[in-house]
């Protein structure tokens, strides 16, 4: 089915199942430990061998020798795989990193060997016995220094040109009566999801099956085929359950390559889980940025010029962090300029992490907006509303399909009692705590991708949906079941959903906030076909029957749905593809974040007190799973604001804090009551579902809202994330001062 005209009324609009706060259908499996994750599969025929990945002990250089005798003579050790016996390997098409190093080492903890043994413990002990001779070479580890020789280049994404200018930014900025020109930095961050990357690999002749944890199955197949130099048709990937990803499991990483190689070389089924301490340097991360924001405005608060330049670093062939995306769409302003620079770094690869680009970019832009509002002596909510735009600011001919940013800000301000915020920074105290409130806008693109699905109707009236879409804890299973139930007019418990298997119809997977809208639209298309088949069985004209309560009817003719499959299962498959609507309209999701913080006036410890997100993201397919996405994202925003930082040791060239004791993410005690308001507003330009994604929107802006609240509480402006207590202590902050 091709979607190329705005959607009219359709079966989804009945909203009997879609739009309801239905519990996750995979919930009971998860809470009772019966959802089988990659590493837990029992592969019937074979006793698996265990692989253990050895990470490089240097950041850059060459491996002279890997002494293996001791390891190989350890009881239980089956073999050692290194670049010298692995055969030729290429790289994938999304991640640029080489997933098995040797002889060159490109970054710290890059995989250099896999030890395979009869047990996990033996493999780990064997790994510790490998002695590696390295020749180190100099590397580039300091983003600020590397920035001097950075290049302005197209980051490889067609939607994001490296430099974009409208009118004349420099002239506009120079002549503005009110100006802001500041530098903001965001650190490297780790996805740090609960389930580490893991794979069980098994070869049957030419055929390779991997039980793995990958968010985009189709990219996984493509990349693994490319890396191993085999036919993608011979690869089957299974990722039915994924213990979190946040983009950290987009496609193939070292665990799956290691397991595939180890299984091929040893002739065994091989299980590998990437040890937690390797996740931070071996895999990918959200790269650090240094961003310069310049905003010029008239005295009445109208932005006349806005400039955003951003530097990030990466390994050769790696992407730039495209932080300027939001600045290009969010606020009006005649003179505009954005620019991305990319420096060469020999740290681990920077790649997509939840709301890539937008999350880091808005961490900077939305503090800048707060600072500008202060300069103008305007309320920060008012200042944002004043500069709203209903057309794309770079191309006024392009309107937003829907855009309720102003409504988000207004609704939030009212609900949060924004008017009780002290206009003066450091104006509110409670015991030992300074209180402050902050706000930020949120914006995140609403991409939608082609997606295929298959639906089967059995004579028991059970509808089974099959697609290789994944559920990384987001609720894909549930919203897909809701879609099929709505379309076929049955209850949700009559729907079975099978996901995460490359032998099923192709989906774009879970990424980029496109999963929900794309996958349910694919299921919609397949269900439309199935409905036609059912109608045919009953002799109805296609498109005329009503599907409801397990029955199919035209006027007074009424049959049980299950009856259509009496003489055999009915199967339909289709793919939803898209026309030009996304070119015609700017399709984005919007929101506003409100935060109250308390800062201990002695220690400067920061604790978040209240949070509210107002989100505008098209049709909300399931308010419960949508809310869960948003509160999870808000939690991640607290981490980004206050604690998450992969600390770069520029002497050694690595992320030092590479475990969950050193890389702190919020714990329950850090998270206060969180409120979410979903401003529902259908977007018929998206697909027949009229829905958009929400999983990334919830993160964008949160950190800046917290930073702004800290400023409001303390009068101290911290422009380097995370806002750790020592930065406030070392600032102009003074214990005694009290306005």
């Amino acid at each position, binding site marked *: 089915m091709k979607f190329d005209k705005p959607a009219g009324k359709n079966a989804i609009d009945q909203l009997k199942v879609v739009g309801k706060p239905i519990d996750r259908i995979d919930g009971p499996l998860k809470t009772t430990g019966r959802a089988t994750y990659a590493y837990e599969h029992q592969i019937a025929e074979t006793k698996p061998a265990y692989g253990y990945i050895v990470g490089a*002990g240097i950041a850059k250089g060459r491996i002279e020798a890997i002494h293996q005798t001791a390891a190989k003579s350890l009881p239980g050790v089956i073999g050692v795989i290194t670049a010298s016996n692995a055969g030729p390997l290429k790289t994938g098409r999304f991640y640029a990193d080489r997933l098995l190093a040797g002889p060159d080492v490109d970054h710290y903890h890059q995989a250099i060997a896999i030890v395979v043994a009869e047990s996990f413990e033996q493999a780990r*002990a064997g790994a510790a016995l490998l002695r590696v001779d390295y020749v180190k070479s100099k590397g580039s580890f300091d983003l600020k220094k590397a920035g001097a020789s950075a290049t302005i280049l197209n980051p490889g994404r067609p939607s994001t040109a490296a430099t974009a200018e409208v009118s004349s930014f420099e002239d506009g900025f120079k002549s503005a009566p009110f100006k802001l020109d500041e530098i903001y930095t965001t650190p490297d961050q780790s996805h740090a999801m609960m389930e580490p990357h893991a794979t069980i690999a098994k070869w049957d002749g030419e055929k390779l099956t991997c039980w793995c944890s990958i968010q985009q199955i189709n990219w996984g197949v493509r990349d693994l085929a490319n890396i191993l130099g085999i036919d993608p048709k011979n690869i089957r990937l299974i990722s039915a359950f994924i213990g979190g990803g946040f983009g950290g499991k987009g496609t193939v990483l070292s665990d799956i390559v290691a397991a595939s190689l180890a299984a091929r070389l040893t002739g065994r089924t091989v299980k590998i889980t990437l040890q937690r301490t390797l996740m931070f340097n071996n895999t990918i991360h959200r790269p650090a940025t240094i961003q310069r924001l310049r905003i010029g405005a008239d005295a009445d608060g109208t932005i006349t010029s806005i400039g955003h330049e951003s530097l990030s670093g990466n390994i050769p062939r790696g992407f730039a962090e495209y932080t300027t995306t939001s600045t290009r769409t969010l606020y009006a302003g005649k003179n505009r300029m954005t620019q991305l620079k990319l420096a060469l770094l020999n740290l681990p690869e920077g790649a997509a992490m939840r709301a890539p680009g937008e999350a880091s970019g808005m961490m900077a832009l939305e503090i800048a907006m707060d600072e500008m509002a202060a300069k103008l002596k305007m309320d920060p909510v008012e200042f944002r509303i004043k500069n709203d735009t209903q057309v794309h600011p770079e191309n006024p001919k392009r309107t937003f399909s829907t855009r309720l940013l102003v409504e988000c800000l207004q609704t939030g301000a009212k609900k949060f009692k924004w008017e009780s915020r002290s206009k003066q920074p450091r104006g509110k105290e409670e015991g030992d705590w300074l209180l402050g409130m902050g706000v930020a806008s949120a914006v995140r693109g609403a991409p939608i991708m082609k997606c295929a699905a298959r639906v089967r109707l059995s004579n028991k009236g059970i509808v089974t949906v099959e697609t290789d879409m994944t559920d990384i804890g987001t609720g894909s299973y549930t919203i897909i079941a809701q879609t099929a139930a709505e379309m076929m007019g049955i209850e949700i418990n009559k729907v079975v959903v099978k996901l995460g298997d490359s032998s099923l119809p192709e989906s774009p997977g879970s990424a980029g906030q496109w999963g929900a809208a794309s996958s349910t639209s694919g299921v919609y298309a397949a269900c439309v076909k199935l409905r036609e088949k059912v109608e045919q069985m009953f002799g109805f004209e296609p498109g005329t029957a009503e599907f409801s309560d397990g029955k199919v009817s035209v006027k007074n003719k009424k049959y049980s749905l299950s009856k259509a499959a009496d003489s055999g299962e009915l199967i339909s498959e289709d793919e939803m593809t898209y026309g030009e609507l996304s070119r015609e309209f700017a399709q984005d999701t919007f929101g506003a974040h409100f935060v109250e913080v308390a800062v201990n006036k*002695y*220690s400067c410890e920061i*604790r978040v007190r209240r949070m509210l997100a107002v989100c505008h993201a098209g049709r909300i397919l399931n308010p419960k799973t949508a809310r869960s996405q948003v509160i999870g994202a808000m939690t991640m925003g607290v981490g980004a604001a206050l*604690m998450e930082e992969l600390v770069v040791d520029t002497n050694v060239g690595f992320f030092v804090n590479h475990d969950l004791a050193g890389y*702190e993410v919020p714990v329950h005690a*850090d998270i206060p009551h969180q409120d979410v308001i979903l401003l529902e507003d259908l977007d018929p330009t998206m697909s027949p579902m009229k829905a958009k994604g929400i999983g990334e929107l919830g993160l964008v802006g949160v950190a800046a809202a917290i930073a702004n609240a800290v400023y409001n509480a303390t009068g101290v402006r911290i422009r380097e994330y995370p806002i750790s207590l020592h930065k406030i*202590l070392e600032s102009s902050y003074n214990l005694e001062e009290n306005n």
Partner: protein
Amino acid sequence: MKSFTYQRVTTALDAAKAADKTPGSKFIAGGTNLLDLMKLQIEKPAHLIDISKTGLNKIELNTDGGLRIGAMVNNTDLASHNVVRRDYGLLARALLSGASGQLRNKATTSGNLLQRTRCPYFYDTNQLCNKRVPGSGCAAIAGFSRQLAIIGSSDHCIATHPSDMAVAMRALDATVETVNVRGEHRKIPIADLYLLPGSTPHLENTLQPGEIITSVLLPPPIGGKQIYQKIRDRASYAFATISVGAIIYPDGSGKLALGGVAAKPWRIEQAEALLPKGSKLVTERLLAGARPTGENQYKIMLVERTIESVIQQAKR
């Protein structure tokens, strides 16, 4: 993890004897620290002596009115003991600020005292670390040192001792009781238990090889307002950036020990005399001779502020 042999003993003396018999052995109590270190091959004992069933899991009132805490008493039981809660609030608070519920259920009193540093370079066997490999160097001094020591450190090591409980015990003047292979008992004031790094950061305490901690003695209750203020980047489940364990009396006098600043709980009794004169003078005396790195310089101000906060809280 290197393969090892394992034995369980039922008395402390048997443990000491077993340790004497098998060089390269280690006692394992709750195992919450030792096992992690073994998996990373930072600790590589050839033999483990499990002391968890030695019956040293009682909390008893001492004849002098103090408390004897068995070495195997777990952190949860200790923190929730009614006498501890009533008379040694500082200890209960320090314990509860540490780790998580699950860990405290497993972690023992002696294991907590002897847990090793959380310096990130110590935890990564690819990095230079004098504590792990004597004489290899110290990557932390020129590296990431925000969490590390500001005082009592050396050019060889700037690691801190991470225990919260030990800070409380230091302020409460606890004494550690031990037994060795010959059955000899020893009482070590907690002030003398830990060694500063000097040029031998791998030597962390004054226990002799095979000597085992059997209990910790607390002197009779000393009253006062007992406050444990732990400063950290997140609200729970994090090691202290710095911490202050204090007992403050109505006249402003008191006792005070610091965590997160040195290789041992840091206490200078002379500094306490300055308590009535305010946090600034106390801190100056407590941290005289501090040698922070650029990254952890802030801890000096943080100590002063936190002591000030503690003094103010005690007034309420």
